[in-house]
């Protein structure tokens, strides 16, 4: 039984594509932060303590615009509110070995991608698996920012831009298999993607921030899935 549990090693392996994706995104964050006047160590510290993309970019603009701390707190709250949903969702499929100290520690590393990968696992999530999964993305996110901040553009631009799609390739690999098997998952993804396009391209929604757009799409599409495609008891595991 014990050997069937998710291991640290398996987490590490699943973290590789996330780390690769983070490297390019954090690299560009490092470049952006330094070009806006932040010292490289501050940019790196932001990445090490926040581990999030949209929130950091918004935070960067508030720092450079000398905004208030309240503004900073509110912006982070709105943009990162989706993590509360993800934490809640993930709290429902934790292994019994996930004690409170582990929860305090592992919660730090719940990002969109780390949540998606761990939530997509058929088995309950162990602390060891979570730490393995978080480790490489954390290292890549921090070191990518450091590199971007210090050396600017050492990579050829074409290579940089091709790496930018890695993260989305990973998303596709997560939702395609279940979407093929379950009409409910398929419809949920389609509704969410369609709404996300509306919020992005229809001019009246221009003021909706990207973090908030994800919250709206998630709430609506997941609710639609639950209403129109309730799962049978037997489907749960």
């Amino acid at each position, binding site marked *: 039984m014990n050997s069937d549990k998710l291991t640290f090693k398996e987490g590490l392996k699943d973290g590789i*594509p996330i780390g690769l994706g983070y490297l390019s995104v954090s690299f560009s964050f490092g470049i952006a932060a330094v070009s806006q006047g*932040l010292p490289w160590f*501050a940019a790196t510290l*932001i990445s090490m*303590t*926040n581990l*999030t993309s949209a*929130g950091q970019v918004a*935070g960067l603009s508030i*720092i450079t615009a*000398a905004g208030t701390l309240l503004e900073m707190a509110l912006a*982070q*709250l709105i943009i*990162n509110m989706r*993590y*509360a*949903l*993800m*934490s*809640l*969702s*993930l*709290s*429902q499929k934790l292994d019994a070995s996930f004690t409170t100290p582990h*929860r305090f520690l592992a919660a730090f590393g*719940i990002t*969109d991608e780390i*949540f*998606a*990968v761990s939530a*997509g696992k058929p088995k309950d999530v162990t602390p060891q698996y979570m730490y393995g999964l978080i480790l490489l993305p954390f290292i890549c996110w921090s070191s990518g920012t450091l590199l971007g901040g210090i050396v600017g553009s050492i990579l050829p631009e074409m290579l940089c*831009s*091709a790496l*930018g*799609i890695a993260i*989305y390739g*990973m*998303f*596709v*690999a*997560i*939702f395609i*298999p279940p979407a*093929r098997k379950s009409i409910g998952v398929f419809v*949920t*993804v389609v*509704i*969410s*993607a369609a*709404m*996300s396009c509306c919020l*992005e391209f229809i001019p009246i929604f221009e003021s909706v921030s990207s973090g908030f*757009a994800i919250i709206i799409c998630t709430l*609506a*599409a*997941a*609710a639609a*899935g*639950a209403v129109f*495609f309730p799962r049978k008891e037997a489907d749960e595991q």
Partner: protein
Amino acid sequence: MKISIAAYIAVMAGVTYLIRMLPFVIFRKKIKSRFVKDFLYYVPYAVLGAMTIPAVFFSTGNVVSAVAGLAAALVLAFKGKGLLPVAAAGCIGAFVTELVLTLI
């Protein structure tokens, strides 16, 4: 009064951590409600759908290479390949397309 960068970073990091930590630590019981369970089951797929489309089309140098990369990733995902091969296919598809586009 000038706010130090350290204060900004502390607020950013503190708020972001609390958002992640509180639901994770507080919710101990398994939720009973059918609707809430199904809702939470669909949350990750809804998040992924919203984050992937349309952002993937702007993730590379241009829309054409992004579409090529996405197509390559979709093909491998449909074949049931894992995260790394699918992500790599996306990168290679996009890179080769950008290379070809610059040569034309």
